[in-house]
Each structure stands twice: as structure tokens, then as C-alpha cells.
């Protein structure tokens, strides 16, 4: 089992030997699993980078990006090139003390082909992205947090706690938040606002929304069922 689900949280520990096709299949299966409310990815990012170089057409980054549930990534070591393209398909990234980032394929005469030229500028802005892509700049942890590549410096345990917190949110609401915020990069503002409003109105029919509001008014923790 590449992905393990516990406490509504799916965990993927990246490791040498995991092939890109097998990982992509596991992610597609996860998308159909109602027990998982969030995915936490950690482990050996260079391993997934190597897997992507070995099988670039496995659809692995696409499978991660297509997940409906939120994805929290913790990077505790080198996360270069293809590995960083994979990490950029997560929704929230945290950097451990030994994290290192680089997207310098062009320095070796290649170009990113798993979304790096599109997702990196959307994450950190055009200027910081160009510095990494063209000049090969490798931001340290502080710089990665400053430019928005990572959302914080954190230990693996602290990053996992963020995933668990997301798993405690209303699961449909969390998916809709992900969908709406992700769409903000692709839609004109007017259309994005339409999508947000429609998703918000769709939630009116969910038991979770009623439970969330009731629990707030009764000052207790909500019990969400994903319906």
C-alpha cells in the first residue's frame, strides 16, 4: 500500500522504488475513497523526482493536482526540479529545516514539463519564478517562505497537525474551498465569484453545513459526516 489512511488523513511517504505509474494509480484510487479527507505527503522528494524522470508520461503530477481533497506537503530535504513540480501540485507546502528548493532544469538544457513553468509563477510571482527557472536560484527555507513557495517552516509533526486540522473541517466545504481558490488562477474575477457563490449555495443542502452552524451556536465541536 503506497497510501495509508488513518484518522481521515491519507499519508503518502515518498521513497525510492515507488514508480510513477504506481503512484499515479494510487492517487486516482485515493480520489474515489470516501474515508480520506486530506492527503499528507512527506518523505524522499528526490525519489519522486527520479520516478518522474524515469516515467515522464505516467500522469503522476496531473493525478496529484486533480485530487479533490486538499493536499499538504512537507519537504524535509532536497526538492529539486521534477520533485518540486510534484510538490507544486500540492495545496499547502511546509519546509523542514533541511529543505532545499530548486527548479533549474534549463541550466541542464531541459525545460520543466510537469507544470513548473505554470505553477511556479502562480505560486511565487513572475520575478521570483524567473530567478529560479533562468538563473537557477535555490531559495533557502526563509526565502521559500518569504516568496510563498512554502507556507511556513515546520517540523514534520507540525505539518501533519495542519493536515489533521484540515481533516477536521467540513469535508465537502474543504473540497469546495480548494476548488474555488484553485479556480481563482484560471478564471476571470467575475466567473470566479460566480463559482464561489454557486458552490456556497450548493452547500446549503448538506447536513454538514447545518451541523457546522448548529455546533457553533451551541459552542461545541462539529461532527461532520461528509454529506
Amino acid at each position, binding site marked *: 500500500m503506497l497510501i495509508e489512511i488513518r484518522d481521515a488523513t491519507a499519508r503518502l511517504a515518498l521513497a525510492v522504488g515507488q514508480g510513477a505509474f504506481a503512484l499515479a494509480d494510487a492517487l486516482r484510487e485515493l480520489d474515489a475513497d470516501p474515508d480520506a479527507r486530506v492527503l499528507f505527503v512527506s518523505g524522499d522528494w528526490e525519489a519522486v523526482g527520479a520516478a518522474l524522470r524515469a516515467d515522464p508520461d505516467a500522469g503522476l503530477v496531473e493525478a496529484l493536482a486533480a485530487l479533490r481533497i486538499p493536499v499538504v506537503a512537507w519537504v524535509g530535504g532536497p526538492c529539486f526540479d521534477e520533485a518540486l513540480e510534484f510538490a507544486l501540485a500540492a495545496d499547502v507546502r511546509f519546509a523542514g529545516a533541511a529543505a532545499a528548493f530548486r527548479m533549474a532544469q534549463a541550466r541542464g538544457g531541459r525545460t520543466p514539463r510537469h507544470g513548473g513553468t505554470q505553477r511556479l509563477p502562480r505560486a511565487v510571482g513572475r520575478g521570483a519564478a524567473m530567478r529560479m527557472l533562468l538563473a537557477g536560484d535555490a531559495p533557502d527555507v526563509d526565502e521559500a517562505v518569504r516568496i510563498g513557495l512554502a507556507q511556513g517552516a515546520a517540523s514534520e509533526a507540525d505539518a501533519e497537525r495542519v493536515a489533521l486540522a484540515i481533516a477536521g*473541517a467540513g469535508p465537502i*466545504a474543504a473540497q*469546495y*474551498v480548494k476548488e474555488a481558490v484553485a479556480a481563482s488562477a484560471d478564471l476571470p*474575477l467575475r466567473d470566479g465569484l460566480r463559482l464561489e457563490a454557486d458552490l456556497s449555495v450548493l452547500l446549503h443542502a448538506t447536513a454538514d453545513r*447545518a451541523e457546522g452552524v448548529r455546533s457553533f451556536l451551541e459552542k461545541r465541536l462539529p461532527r461532520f459526516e461528509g454529506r
Partner: protein
Amino acid sequence: MSGFLALRYEKRDGAAVITLNRPDAVNAFNLRMRDEFWEALTAARDDPDVRGLLVAGAGERGFCAGADLAEFGSSPSQAAARYARWARDLWGALLDLPKPTMAAAHGVCFGSGLEIAALCDLRIVSSDAVFALPEASLGLIPAAGGTQTLPRIIGLPRAMEAALTGRRVSAQEAHRAGFADWVVPRERLLREAEERLRAVASAPPDALALVKRAVNEGADMTLGEGLRLERRLAARLG
């Protein structure tokens, strides 16, 4: 202007000030406030003496704690709720106000409070301000534009983290992220907000309105289209 119960509307020296005014409920945004906000916004838009709009919150505890959940479930149907959202597009009207807008946020600034601030052009906050989008933890999503406006201000990943986790963010972090344009001590917030807004609004109103349009509309265009829009708008000023 009289008759408002959930907010105050004042004009001072060219600046219109809308003050959310339900301090006992940390200015929780309710239906009455929505209706009055629409009226106040219309007045500010149509009044040639008003050159800029400031939105603030009354009371000690904060700018706005978010939507008033006590009223949730009061809509008769999904169709009615969807209709009501667009029958009077309050958030679009704030976004499109052809005059500079500024939020002055102190203390609690959660949910739609944060979203109202995000719909303004500029944000000045007190050093004790705290920001969060707690909607998902309640089985809701932000619905005053936050999922679209926040990524445009602080970038996609930061906005995603804020909206997924509901984490509370300090004024200082909000400033580093580019959400808060200025951080000042609480006791200076309103005075400095009005001063800065008047300084912004002292430029010719036509130019300000056109710059605002070029930036907002251009953000959704290809660069080539945006440059053409800019040239077209610039030509209007001669």
C-alpha cells in the same frame, strides 16, 4: 444620513465612512447590515462630494467577526439564496466603486470581515488585528468573494492555506504577506486611515477611477489585452 441601525454613514471632508455598527456582536454581518451597506454604498457612489470610501468597525473587539450565523438557514431555498446573492451584487458594487476604497481593521477580522477588507483597494490595520477564514471548519466556504480576492492579493498558496486551515494570522504576518498595506497602533488607526485615504483621494478623481479599472480589469486579461485597455483608458484623460 439617518435611519441606519446596523451601520453608521458619515461624510467628513470628502471621505465617506461606513462604520459597521453592531459592536455587541463584534459587527457580525447580518441581513440588515447587508441592506444598509447597499444603501450607503450607493450614496457614496452617487455623491460627487465623496472622493473616497473608508470601511471601519465600531467597538473595542474588532472590525467584523464574519457573517451572523444566527441568521443562517433563514433562506427559503437554494434557488432563493442564489437569486438574493445577485439581485443586488453588494460585493461587486464595493469592488467596482469608481473611487478609492480603504478598510480600517482592528481586532477580530474573521470570515466576511476579512473578505470585506479584501474587496477594498487598500487596507490599514491596527497592530492587534487578527485575521482568519474559519468557514471550512464550520462546513461553509467563504462567500463574499474571499476565495477569489485573497489569492489575487497574497498569492495562491498563502490564500489556499488560509482558507483550508482557518489559521489565525497576526497583523504583522498579514503585512508581510501583502494583505495589510499599513500597520499602526490601535489608537491611531482611524485618524491615520482617514489621512491616508484623503491623501490618496486628493488626486484627480477621473484618473483614480481609470487606474482602478485598468488594474482590476487588466488582471483578468492577457498582457496584450491589458496594455490595449490601459492605452484606451489613458486616452480618455487626454
